[in-house]
């Protein structure tokens, strides 16, 4: 490879208005609203996901007021919120316990199913994966559009549930029965249009959306890889999305079955999940009984556990791409990463009962699940270690994506390691349902996945828009967010170790009675700095929001299609790519992370650059034989 300039794009890239084929010009609605183009759908998912993330964040900020100042009226906006949410949610600006429970249940549901999964899997996956594998689109574009609109319907149902009599679902994001069945029933509630039932109905649409998406992703990655793009030449991001799609495909349906059964319990008075002899409000429930609340838990967590790997894997994929790109060296241990991801996906199906340690499981089943749960920590550690080692000896440049990606590493590390005590039935007897658990999973999802998502937004923004986001404001977004994340969630470990219970509306005041201090404050007193940090973090997102929208129209234009000097195939397409992405499928001759290869002239070599004769004659330090079929 000589040092003369080589075009970033190949001659085969497709430019905006040159349609060689017989496509007619689409109207506004078919082009921008009901589009079947993966890039449009990806952006639709992205914007929707960000909006829901913002809404879920606002719900949390409201909860934090109640936790820091229980029973006190919320200043300034308290009455306005009462009018907005209605149904007596915050009379005189003071939060009712039922409304607090609704906020808790919906914060979790919205953040996971309407925020993170659509963003991490659907938005980034849809936009990036076909480009990274050199495909013109997903294999089933219409199914792709159907998946997005099913998601929108599900989201609308979830939002509407706030405004029906009785308010939104309040049985936790887990909707454990019998509460999930008997909540929101009775004379004050509509038999169908109540929060708990609408929550279940919304879920049907969201699950359907994910299933359709998963089918598309898997088929696309199998069938539409460009010539020369073998499995072991795929960017790790594609592998991560592939495994995630399988998790969604196979783990969601049992929950869909369970949701249907809980709907039957609520609407048809069946007793799938209701035990015999249940007494509600002093009267025996007129149902057949004979059901099992535990059955709901098994079917829920059968999805619930793979779901958490759905939340983290795309984030890991994004971080992988950005680490390699910004350390200007290949990822360390590519094969280990791939196999770790596959093993992680596989094992995630057989660990679910570690969410049920307190249901009275015996020693045999408990030993099984403890064993598999501990084993599953190994692939996670492998992945994280490979990421750390990838930085060693790198020529690191701290662009904004790199800041978020680097921060991901210790944050995910803390989150993952603090999960280990929870893997033991014995330790979990104490920690279950405490703030320790909340801290553990938030460390993984919040400064973990969400930071990875921010990194991805800053990174792929120029590909989607042809403009860069502002660098300075990106850093203003990053540093307060990182600090606030830790001020919010680190003390929660302490609160949990004091035994402070989660989901309780009183902010843990029951534990204030003991007067026990941890690191200088009582458990309840810790709520105040945590809440303040949460509100400051809300403020820290404002530069991001402004930066995002401002840069779409006024951001600095990119000089070429590959502003980050990256190696993967999406950077060979124009920024933004046109319909069909490539005129002819690009051909991949190399692995995905050919950074700083000696004697190449520049410090990166794109995947579609052909092999020069000189690369064969001398001892060429690529990671794999270049002639691999």
């Amino acid at each position: 490879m000589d040092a003369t300039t080589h075009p970033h794009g190949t001659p085969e890239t497709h430019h905006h208005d040159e349609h060689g084929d017989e496509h007619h010009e689409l109207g506004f609605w078919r082009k921008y609203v009901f589009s079947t183009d993966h890039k449009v759908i990806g952006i639709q998912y992205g914007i929707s996901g960000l909006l829901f993330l913002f809404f879920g964040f606002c719900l949390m900020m409201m909860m934090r007021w109640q936790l820091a100042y229980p029973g006190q009226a919320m200043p300034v906006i308290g009455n306005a919120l009462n009018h907005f949410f209605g149904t007596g949610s915050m009379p005189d600006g003071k939060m009712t316990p039922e409304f607090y429970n609704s906020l808790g249940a919906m914060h979790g549901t919205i953040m996971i199913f309407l925020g993170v999964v659509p963003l991490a899997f659907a938005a980034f996956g849809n936009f990036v994966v076909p480009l990274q594998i050199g495909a013109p689109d997903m294999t089933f574009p219409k199914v792709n559009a159907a998946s997005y609109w099913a998601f929108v319907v599900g989201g609308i149902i979830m939002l509407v549930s706030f405004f029906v009599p009785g308010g939104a679902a309040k049985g936790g994001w887990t909707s454990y029965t019998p509460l999930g069945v008997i909540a929101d029933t009775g004379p004050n509630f509509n038999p169908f249009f109540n929060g708990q039932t609408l929550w279940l109905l919304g879920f049907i649409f969201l699950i359907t959306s994910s299933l359709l998406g998963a089918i598309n992703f898997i088929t696309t990655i199998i069938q539409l890889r460009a010539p020369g793009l073998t499995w072991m030449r795929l960017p790790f991001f594609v592998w991560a999305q592939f495994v995630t799609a399988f998790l969604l495909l196979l783990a969601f349906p049992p929950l869909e079955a369970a949701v249907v059964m809980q709907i039957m319990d609520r609407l048809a008075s069946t007793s799938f999940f209701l035990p015999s002899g249940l007494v509600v409000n002093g009267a025996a429930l007129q149902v057949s009984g004979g059901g099992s609340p535990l059955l709901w838990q098994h079917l829920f967590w059968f999805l619930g556990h793979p779901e958490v790997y759905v939340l983290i894997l795309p984030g890991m994929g994004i971080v992988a791409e950005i680490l390699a790109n910004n350390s200007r060296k290949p990822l360390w241990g590519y094969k280990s990463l791939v196999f770790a991801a596959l093993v992680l996906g596989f094992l995630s199906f057989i660990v679910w009962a570690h969410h049920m340690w307190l249901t009275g499981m015996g020693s045999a089943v408990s030993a099984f699940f403890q064993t598999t749960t501990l084993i599953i920590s190994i692939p996670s550690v492998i992945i994280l270690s490979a990421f750390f080692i990838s930085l060693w000896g790198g020529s690191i440049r701290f662009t904004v994506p790199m800041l978020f990606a680097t921060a991901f590493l210790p944050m995910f590390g803390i989150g993952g390691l603090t999960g280990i005590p929870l893997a033991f039935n014995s330790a979990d007897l104490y920690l279950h349902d405490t703030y320790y658990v909340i801290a553990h999973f938030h460390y993984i999802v919040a400064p973990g996945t969400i930071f990875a998502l921010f990194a991805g937004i800053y990174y792929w923004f120029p590909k989607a828009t042809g403009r860069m986001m502002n660098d300075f404001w990106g850093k203003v977004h990053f540093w307060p967010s990182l600090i606030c994340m830790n001020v919010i969630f680190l003390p929660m470990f302490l609160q949990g170790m004091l035994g402070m219970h989660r989901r309780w509306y009183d902010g843990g005041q029951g534990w204030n009675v003991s007067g026990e201090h941890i690191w200088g404050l009582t458990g309840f007193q810790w709520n105040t700095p945590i809440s303040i940090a949460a509100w400051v973090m809300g403020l820290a997102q404002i530069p991001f929001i402004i930066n995002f929208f401002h840069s779409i129209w006024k951001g600095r234009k990119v000089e070429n299609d590959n502003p980050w000097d990256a190696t993967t195939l999406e950077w060979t397409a124009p920024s933004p790519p046109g319909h069909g992405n490539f005129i002819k499928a690009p051909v991949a001759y190399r692995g995905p992370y050919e950074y700083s290869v000696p004697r190449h002239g520049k410090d990166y070599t794109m995947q579609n650059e052909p092999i020069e004769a000189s690369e064969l004659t001398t001892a060429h330090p690529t990671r794999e034989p270049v002639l691999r079929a």
Partner: protein
Amino acid sequence: MNNPPDISPVEHETEEYAHEVRRHVRGYLMVGATLLAFTAITVALSYVNFGTQKANVAVALLVATFKAGLVAAIFMHLSAEKRLIYRILIFTGFFVFGLFWLTYLAWYNPIVR
């Protein structure tokens, strides 16, 4: 040295394939007849007592599995399907089995004093 492997589309040789399909038609009809016969058999067997309830259930499920196997192998062409499809189904089978068996394990292994 820069020739990537051939992943071009495979065109069907239509006439030969049509001829092959014709040979299979009789097979489809025979499998259909077998399925109908075994439906009658399964109904008849349900009135025979094989001792324990477990045995009765086992017999019924065995016949059902046989019928399902025929549908899958012949009607759904699974017996001639590609490796990738097998792999997907084997993983699925493993996870369904895990769902049943691990839940069963949890169900019948409660904490005892």
